[in-house]
């Protein structure tokens, strides 16, 4: 009977010691935005993201940041206009804070769900229940991919235009983040 009590007390504890507990660092990350205009479809990519995370008894939190000026669309003038539109002079960084992590069941989950708070162009916007696909999952590493459905209006950004025609309000940002423990 005492053995049963011990086992009952120990099982929840071992179930709580998830692989996620500990400190995490972003070993590589890229963010890619997509802009649509009747005359152009443009993508701008940055591989300059840095991030840290931590998981403990109170949950997990991850913070990823990337300099706005690190995005490269292949055209210098277009990049400069983008800096102006998103007020890069005043707010040089984009920050993405991920909390409320929910991991799918099984030893290698296919998907995770997070609440993402994006700080961009001087505004904070929450994206609850954002689903990220698991590209790779190991004991001490995870590669996650997903899309932040950004909207220019949500961040009070005036849509740039070409020949008086503005770009579309929706500017999805694709995330490709590889995390390593330790």
């Amino acid at each position, binding site marked *: 009977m*005492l053995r049963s009590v011990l086992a009952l007390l120990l099982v929840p504890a071992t179930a709580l010691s998830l692989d996620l507990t500990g400190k995490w660092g972003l070993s590589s990350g890229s963010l890619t935005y997509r802009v649509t205009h009747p005359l152009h479809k443009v993508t701008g990519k940055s591989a300059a993201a840095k991030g840290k995370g931590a998981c403990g008894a109170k949950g997990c939190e991850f913070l990823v940041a990337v300099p706005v000026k690190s995005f490269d669309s292949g055209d210098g003038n277009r990049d400069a206009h983008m800096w102006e539109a998103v007020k*890069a*002079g005043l707010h040089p960084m984009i920050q993405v804070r991920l909390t409320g992590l929910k991991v799918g069941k099984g030893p290698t989950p296919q998907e995770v769900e997070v609440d993402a708070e994006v700080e961009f162009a001087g505004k904070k916007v929450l994206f609850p229940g954002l689903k990220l696909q698991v590209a790779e999952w190991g004991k001490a590493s995870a590669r996650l991919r997903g899309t932040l459905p950004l909207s220019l209006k949500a961040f009070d950004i005036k849509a740039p235009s070409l020949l008086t025609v503005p770009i579309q309000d929706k500017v999805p940002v694709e995330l490709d983040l590889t995390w390593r423990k330790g």
Partner: protein
Amino acid sequence: MKGLRVALAGALWVLGTLPSYGGDARLALSLDDLGFSKEETRSDPQLQKDLEVRSDMLRIHQTLGLINCVPMVATYTMGLINAGAADPDTDLHMGLGLTTATLYATTACFSVFAPKPKGLKSKGNSELHQVLAVVHGAFMIATPILGGLARQEESLETLHLASATGLVTSYLTAMAVMTF
């Protein structure tokens, strides 16, 4: 009883060794934790001002550049008509040419004098546009000079036409690379 105490002690020990973040009640990562330099994270109001002035000036440059297509093409067309005419209207052609040159110079100023913020790299279609600007700039200088000389020396008319053709072609191409 002794066994129960051992079990409870064991359970408490296991629970106590579970990792927790920082010992704080609240998780609180900040930008300073990520390792960016101060230069990368620092706000620069002067940069923002330069970017806004640059955008405004380039918008005017674009508008004037588009408007300038009209007198430029009209001048060129007039020149082609004059070339085949028995009684060419060179005064009108010259007047249109002068209008083109004046608008051209004004358009160019808005581009040349627009601020160039730190970190701005010339590449892509914008770079091609700038290269073409040098080409049509040279033609813009040569064409009226040759036109003036052709009024005294008819043999220079062909060169004037060739220069004008080069001007219109490179100018319209410079516009196209920024549009498509």
